[in-house]
């Protein structure tokens, strides 16, 4: 006689188990990852914020340029610490290390596996994303209560980009094809996010496109947290939630197609 046992979707124990693997591995490489995740946005911050701020641009929208860039660099830190690690990490674990084959032999489903991977990347990015903001305090940015929401904004945005990365990893045939993903998506999103200049100065069509850029919405929310929220920031937050939800489902769909024959 066949036994029946109800199994729920997205079991916390399965997700926690997968995340515990990520934590155990992260303990072995956190120094390098943290170094690059912190240093890269700081280099941009100092180069643009101090370089351009001292020579070409003193203020933007009434804010000292380095503070304008510093708040915007939060988004840069988030995309660099979420989209790229999830793309490369997922691809390596699947193709080279056969890690997912081992995990899926345990009572873990693809949905739980992908969710855990996204949650872990997003949690890391929420921390790394705050670094440029904290550094900007040293250039006169005043702490504000709204900044307490910045880790949440970073977390939701990073969820979306880690889902994007997982979906890309499950789509490309070879690791070098990530060059196309970076050139076509990551770099344009990063440059047209309103980090270094306000998008209001761009041509109308590009402004519309920029408003569909999740990084731009994150930049605006961080600046809202630093300099004061606006009513439509709620819509921005809803947009980021929708972005995370869509990429989560797409990532699961793509990974299921890749992992289950």
């Amino acid at each position, binding site marked *: 006689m066949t036994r029946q*046992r109800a199994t729920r979707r997205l079991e916390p124990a399965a997700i926690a188990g997968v995340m*515990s693997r990520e934590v155990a591995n992260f303990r072995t490489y956190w120094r390098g990852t943290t170094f690059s995740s912190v240093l890269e946005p700081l280099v941009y911050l100092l180069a643009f914020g101090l370089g351009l701020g001292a020579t070409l641009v003193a203020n933007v929208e009434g804010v000292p340029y380095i503070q304008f860039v510093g708040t915007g660099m939060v988004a840069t830190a988030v995309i660099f610490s979420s989209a790229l690690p999830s793309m490369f990490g997922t691809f390596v674990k699947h193709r080279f290390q056969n890690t997912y084959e081992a995990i899926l032999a345990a009572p*873990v489903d693809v949905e739980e596996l992908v969710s855990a991977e996204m949650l872990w990347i997003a949690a890391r990015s929420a921390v790394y994303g705050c670094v440029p903001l904290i550094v900007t305090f040293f250039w006169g940015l005043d702490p504000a209560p709204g900044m307490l929401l910045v880790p949440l904004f970073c977390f939701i945005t990073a969820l979306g980009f880690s889902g994007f990365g997982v979906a890309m990893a499950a789509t490309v045939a070879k690791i070098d094809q990530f060059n196309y993903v970076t050139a076509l998506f990551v770099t344009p999103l990063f440059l047209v996010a309103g980090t270094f200049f306000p998008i209001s100065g761009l041509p109308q069509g590009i402004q519309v496109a920029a408003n569909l850029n999740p990084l731009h919405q994150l930049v605006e929310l961080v600046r809202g947290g630093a300099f004061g929220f606006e009513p439509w920031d709620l819509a921005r937050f809803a947009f980021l939630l929708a972005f995370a939800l869509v990429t989560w489902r797409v990532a699961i769909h793509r990974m299921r197609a890749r992992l289950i024959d």
Partner: protein
Amino acid sequence: MAAIELSGVVKRFGQITAVDGLDLEVPEGICLGLLGPNGAGKSTTMRLLTGQAIADEGELRVLGYELPAESKPARAEMGVVPQLDNLDVDVTVEDNLAIFARLYRVPDVGAAVDRALDLARLRDRRRDAVDKLSGGMRRRLLLARGLVHEPRLVLLDEPTVGLDPQIRTELWTLIGELKARGTTILMSTHYIEEAERLSDEVAVMHQGKIISRGHPAHLIAEHAGTHTAEVYAPPQRLTELRASIEAAGLRVRPAGPAIAIVGSEAAADGVVPTDAVVRAATLEDVFVLLTGEEAE
């Protein structure tokens, strides 16, 4: 109740049918060796059993659970030792075990890790990173990881493929201990000796089907008789000999630089050359006769 029941299972990959109407029943408490050449469908069968492949046709039941619908509770009660080493190499031995104890929802992770370390004889290396271990230690750890939750059923997918003889023997000892505890084992292999030494029963798989099954000694008696005569000679003479021996109604198979006359005890006088080396029939004779593939 059988631990594994497969009925009419078919799995296709495009134009290729990897598993072709497979019927397989594994009773609880035995070690069944799934012996077949590369491409026979053994690994696909293992993936079907772990829910990582979905059958196009047929019925699969593991430990009483219908697959793929109840794959997750089935996986909770089975352990899998993969063909490829997929340990986390930078992580310590005990963390590798603890991660999987958590994935399998083991209540006392510490005790499960200690038990697995004892099984793998790695207690004194528990805090070493995996990449500091020898090849044999890594395979023992891989086996212990699949057993960390004390599963009722263990799937061993080519457990010693590519290993040197010493490590292979170490693994066989561990698998023997597992058998002695009454754990049900399904072991895919293409090593004849491995199947013969460890299996209570051997199922020969070829082109996605089981083509023969039984205790190794019974399979030998049924398909290969009692004796095999091997003849070593230049290729031209072997070709001529083969033709004449087959014309006399005997079965001949290639055996590296020789030919092997299977069931030579039944040969009429003068059919088997006087310089032939006569030995007891083996499972390898059965394997090559049934599959047409050279054994490893």
